[in-house]
C-alpha cells in the first residue's frame, strides 16, 4: 500500500473507497445503479419522487439533492419529494460518509434527471406532434409547445419512460444555466423541526409498540456467566427478558417498566471481567507498546537530495473523542413471518442489512431496513448497534414492534469513539534552515468498524452472542479513499522529500470507529503545529511561511483570503491575546480550507473569532456549505479545548454531559466564512473541511498568546500549566 508523489490519491479517482467502477463510464453512483426508474418517478399528483440512498444527518443533503433535481428537470423545488431511504426502494448508495454525497449521489441524479427530461420531452413531442426542441418545461411540470399545446411530466408519468438504463449521453445544464443549484434554497426539513412534526426515528409511533432496555456489562468484553431473571419478570409491565450469550435485555409495555425491569435484571447478573482498558495517564507509551501493522503510506525522494544540517523532532497527540450525539441512539425492530423490518438512523442501510442477514442468519431479501432521521451524527456512532439490539429484543416477543432507545450513559460509553492517536513528526533542515526532508509517523487504532466493511459483523451485540463473532480491531479505509489514521498525514506542502508511515494497532480495548475526518483532524493539528514551530524558529510570518511552501493556486487562494478577511497583517499584538493559522486540503483531494483563530487567555482559553476561507468547487447551496463550515469550526473548537473520553481500567467513565463537557453558547467563537466560488469545478463535500485547520489555528493562537506549545489535545488550562 505504498504510493509515491502527492498523497491521498490527488488526481486519481477519489472515489475508490465507495464507488466500484464497473467500466460503464457512468457518473457517480449511476455506475452501480444504472436503472433510471431506481432514482425517480413522476407521480400523478404533480410531484417527482426522488429515491436517494444518501441520508439526512443534519448536513442538508436532501435539500442539496432536491436542488440538483429541480434544476435539471426545470421544476420548482416544492415539486421535488425526497423519499426516505429504504432497502426496499432506494438505490444502494453505500454509506453517507466521507463528504462524498454531493459528488456521488448528486452527480448521478444530475445525469439521471437530464436524461429523464429529454426522454419526457421526446414523448411529449410525439404526443403533441411537434419537435422536442420547441418544447419548454414550466416550474409546475407543464410541458408547453407552439400554439399553447400542453402536456406535463405528470400526464406522461405512466409511460414507463424511465424503465431503462442511463446512458449519460444527455449533458446536464452548464453551470451558468442553473437556477436552483447554487442558490441558498431553504432546507426542506427545517419547517417540520421548528413546528415539532415528527421526522426522527425516536418519534415513530407504531401500533402495539413495546419498549426495550439492554443490560450493559461492567466492562467492554465482560462475559455474562449467570443471569437470574425471575425478579425482572415480576416487574409489572415487563413482557419478556431476552438473552443470547452475554447480550441481555428487557422488553416492556412502557419505558418506565423497562427501566424498572432492567434494574431488577442487573441484580440477577454475574459477570466475568474482560480485557482491561489502558492506563489513561500513559496513552502515548501504551500506543507504542502494542502490536501494530506498519504500512508505508507515502514516500517522496528528492531528485537531488540536499544536505541535512539538523533534524527537528516533535510529538503530538489526540485523545479518544466521543460522537456525543444529542439524541441517544434508537431503533425499532419487528419480526413477522416474512422476516425482519428495522427502522434506523444508520448512515448505511444496505450494509446494516447485510450484517443483520449474516447474524440471524436470514436472506437479505427478507430484511427491510428503513431510514428515519436521528440526531446529527458525525460518523459511526451507536445507530447500527442499536438496530441489532432492537432486533434481538424483538425476537423475544411475538410480532410486536420493539423500540430500543439507549440511555445517555449508553450513548457516551458504548457507542464507538474516535481513535486516540500519537504522531511523531521530524523535519530535516539544511544549513539555511530550509526543510529538505519530512517524516510523519502515526500510531493508533484504525478508524473504521462500520458494518459491511470487514469480513465479519462489527455490531457490538454480534460480539456478545452465545456463538459470538470475533471482536476485530478497527481497520482503515484504503489510501485511495483518503485513508484512515493516515488521512491528511501527507502534507500538501511542497517539501522535496518525505516518508509517511502508519502503525495500526492490532489490539482494541476501547472500541473505535469513524468520527468526522477520521485521522485528518489530528494529523492536520500536528502538521500545522509543527509548521508553526518551524516558522517561529526562523522568525518568519506564519502566512508567508505557508505560502512559500505551497504552489497549488487553490490552496494559496484560501490562505490569502483567510488572511485578508481576518486582517492578519494588521494584527496588534497585546497581552493575553494571540492569533494563529491552520490550513489543509481535506484528504488532499477534497475541499480546501484555511482558518485563522483569535484567542484570549483570561485565564481560561477563549476562542473569540475564527475566520475561514473555503473552496469546495461547485457550490450547490452556499448557505448549506457555510452552515457546515461554521458547525465544523465550532465542533472542532469544542474538541480542541474540552474533549477527551475519560476511563479507568474497567470502563469509560465520561458517560454524562457533566463528565464529557462540550462547548456552550457563551463559549462559542464568532465564525466568519469566506466561500470561494468555483462553479465549473467538481463539487466537494464541506462537512469535514474545517476541523483540522481550526485545530491548528487554535493551537498556534494559544502559542502566540502565551508562548506555550501544547502538543497533546485537548488544550486545557491544566495542560497549559503542565506544559509551560
Amino acid at each position, binding site marked *: 500500500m505504498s504510493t509515491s508523489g502527492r498523497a491521498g490519491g490527488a488526481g486519481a479517482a477519489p472515489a475508490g473507497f465507495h464507488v466500484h467502477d464497473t467500466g460503464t463510464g457512468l457518473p457517480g453512483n449511476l455506475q452501480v445503479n444504472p436503472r433510471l426508474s431506481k432514482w425517480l418517478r413522476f407521480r400523478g399528483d404533480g410531484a417527482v419522487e426522488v429515491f436517494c440512498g444518501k441520508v439526512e444527518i443534519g448536513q442538508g443533503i436532501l435539500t442539496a439533492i432536491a436542488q440538483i433535481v429541480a434544476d435539471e428537470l426545470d421544476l420548482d423545488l416544492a415539486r421535488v419529494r425526497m423519499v426516505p431511504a429504504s432497502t426496499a426502494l432506494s438505490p444502494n448508495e453505500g454509506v453517507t460518509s466521507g463528504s462524498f454525497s454531493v459528488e456521488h449521489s448528486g452527480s448521478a441524479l444530475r445525469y439521471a434527471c437530464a436524461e429523464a427530461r429529454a426522454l419526457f420531452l421526446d414523448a411529449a413531442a410525439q404526443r403533441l406532434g411537434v419537435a422536442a426542441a420547441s418544447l419548454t418545461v414550466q416550474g409546475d411540470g407543464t410541458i408547453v409547445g407552439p400554439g399553447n399545446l400542453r402536456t406535463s411530466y405528470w400526464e406522461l408519468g405512466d409511460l414507463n419512460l424511465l424503465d431503462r438504463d442511463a446512458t449519460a449521453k444527455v449533458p446536464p445544464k452548464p453551470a451558468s444555466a442553473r437556477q436552483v443549484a447554487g442558490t441558498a434554497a431553504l432546507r426542506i426539513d427545517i419547517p417540520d423541526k421548528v*413546528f*415539532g*412534526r415528527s421526522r426522527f426515528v425516536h418519534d415513530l409511533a407504531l401500533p402495539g409498540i413495546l419498549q426495550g432496555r439492554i443490560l450493559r456489562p461492567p466492562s467492554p468484553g465482560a462475559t455474562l456467566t449467570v443471569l437470574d431473571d425471575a425478579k425482572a419478570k415480576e416487574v409489572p409491565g415487563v413482557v419478556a427478558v431476552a438473552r443470547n450469550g452475554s447480550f441481555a435485555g428487557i422488553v416492556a409495555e412502557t419505558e*418506565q417498566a423497562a427501566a424498572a425491569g432492567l434494574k431488577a435484571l442487573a441484580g440477577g447478573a454475574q459477570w466475568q471481567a474482560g480485557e482491561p482498558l489502558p492506563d489513561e495517564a500513559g496513552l502515548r507509551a501504551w500506543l507504542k507498546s502494542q502490536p501494530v501493522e506498519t504500512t508505508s503510506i507515502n514516500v517522496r525522494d528528492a531528485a537531488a537530495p540536499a544536505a541535512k544540517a539538523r533534524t527537528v523532532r516533535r510529538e503530538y497527540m489526540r485523545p479518544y473523542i466521543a460522537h456525543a450525539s444529542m439524541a441517544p441512539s434508537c431503533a425499532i425492530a419487528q419480526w413477522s413471518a416474512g422476516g425482519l423490518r428495522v427502522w434506523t438512523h444508520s448512515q448505511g442501510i444496505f450494509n446494516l442489512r447485510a450484517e443483520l442477514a449474516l447474524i440471524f442468519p436470514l436472506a437479505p431479501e427478507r430484511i427491510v431496513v428503513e431510514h428515519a432521521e436521528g440526531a446529527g*451524527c458525525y460518523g459511526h456512532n451507536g445507530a447500527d448497534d442499536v438496530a441489532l439490539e432492537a432486533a434481538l429484543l424483538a425476537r423475544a416477543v411475538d410480532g410486536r414492534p420493539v423500540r430500543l432507545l439507549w*440511555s445517555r450513559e449508553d450513548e457516551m460509553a458504548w457507542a464507538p469513539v474516535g481513535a486516540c492517536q500519537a504522531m511523531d513528526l521530524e523535519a530535516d533542515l539544511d544549513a539555511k534552515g530550509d526543510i529538505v526532508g519530512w517524516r510523519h509517523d502515526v500510531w493508533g487504532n484504525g478508524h473504521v468498524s462500520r458494518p459491511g466493511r470487514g469480513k465479519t459483523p462489527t455490531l457490538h451485540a454480534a460480539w456478545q452472542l452465545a456463538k459470538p463473532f470475533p471482536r476485530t480491531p478497527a481497520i482503515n479505509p484504503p489510501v485511495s479513499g483518503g485513508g484512515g489514521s493516515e488521512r491528511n498525514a501527507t502534507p500538501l506542502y511542497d517539501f522535496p522529500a518525505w516518508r509517511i508511515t502508519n502503525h495500526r494497532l492490532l489490539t482494541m480495548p476501547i472500541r473505535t470507529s469513524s468520527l468526522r475526518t477520521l485521522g485528518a483532524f489530528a494529523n492536520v493539528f500536528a502538521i500545522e503545529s509543527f509548521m508553526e514551530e518551524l516558522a517561529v524558529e526562523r522568525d518568519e510570518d506564519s502566512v508567508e511561511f505557508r505560502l512559500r511552501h505551497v504552489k497549488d493556486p487553490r490552496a494559496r487562494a484560501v490562505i490569502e483570503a483567510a488572511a485578508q478577511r481576518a486582517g492578519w497583517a494588521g494584527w496588534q499584538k497585546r497581552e493575553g491575546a494571540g492569533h494563529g493559522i491552520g490550513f489543509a486540503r481535506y484528504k488532499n483531494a477534497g475541499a480546501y480550507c484555511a482558518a485563522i483563530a483569535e484567542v484570549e487567555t483570561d485565564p481560561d482559553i477563549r476562542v473569540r473569532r475564527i475566520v475561514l476561507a473555503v473552496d469546495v468547487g461547485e457550490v450547490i447551496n452556499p448557505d448549506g456549505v457555510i452552515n457546515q463550515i*461554521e458547525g465544523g469550526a465550532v465542533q472542532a473548537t469544542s474538541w480542541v479545548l474540552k474533549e477527551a473520553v475519560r476511563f479507568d481500567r474497567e470502563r469509560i467513565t465520561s458517560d454524562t*454531559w457533566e463528565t464529557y463537557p462540550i462547548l456552550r*453558547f457563551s463559549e462559542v467563537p464568532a465564525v466568519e466564512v469566506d466561500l470561494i466560488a468555483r462553479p465549473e469545478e467538481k463539487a466537494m463535500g464541506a462537512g469535514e473541511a474545517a476541523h483540522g485547520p481550526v485545530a491548528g489555528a487554535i493551537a498556534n493562537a494559544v502559542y502566540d498568546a502565551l508562548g506555550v506549545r501544547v502538543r497533546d489535545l485537548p488544550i486545557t488550562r491544566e495542560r497549559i500549566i503542565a506544559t509551560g
Partner: protein
Amino acid sequence: MPETTRLRVNGSERSIEADPATPLLTVLRGPLGLTGTHFGCGANQCGACNVLIDGQAVASCDTPLWAAAGKDITTLEGLGTPERPHPLQAAFIAEQAMQCGYCISGILISAAALLRRNPDPSEAEVRAALDRNLCRCGAHNRIVRAVLRAATEGRPS
C-alpha cells in the same frame, strides 16, 4: 399507583391517568402524542426536553407529573403553527438556524422564555439564556442570530 392529574397543555385542559412520579416528558410524548419535545439525557443536563411551565423553561425529563399538576404547559407544538408561527419559529426558518434540529425544540422553548421576560435581549443575554441548552452540530451562532431577529421582528412597531 396511577392517579388522575390535571394539566393545561398548549391551551387545552388534559386529564392524565398515570403514576404521579412519571416524568412529564413521558406523558407528553406518550399519551399526549406531543413528540416535538425530545429526550436527550434524562438528567436535566442538555435542555433538549425543555417545555414552558407557567412561562419558565423547565426540563421535562426530570419534572415529575405531580409537579406540573394544575400548571400551564407549552410545548413546541403550542408555540405556533405553520399558518401562525411564533416569531421565533419564523426567525429560525429565516436564519436556517440548525443542522440536525434535535436540540431545537428545547432551544426554541428557552428562547421563548427569555423573550417573555426580556423582549429586547443583547447577544450576551441570549447566549446566557441558552447556556444550559447543548447543540452538538455547532449551529450556535445561527441560533443566536435567529433569537435576536425574532426579538426585533416580534416587537410591536
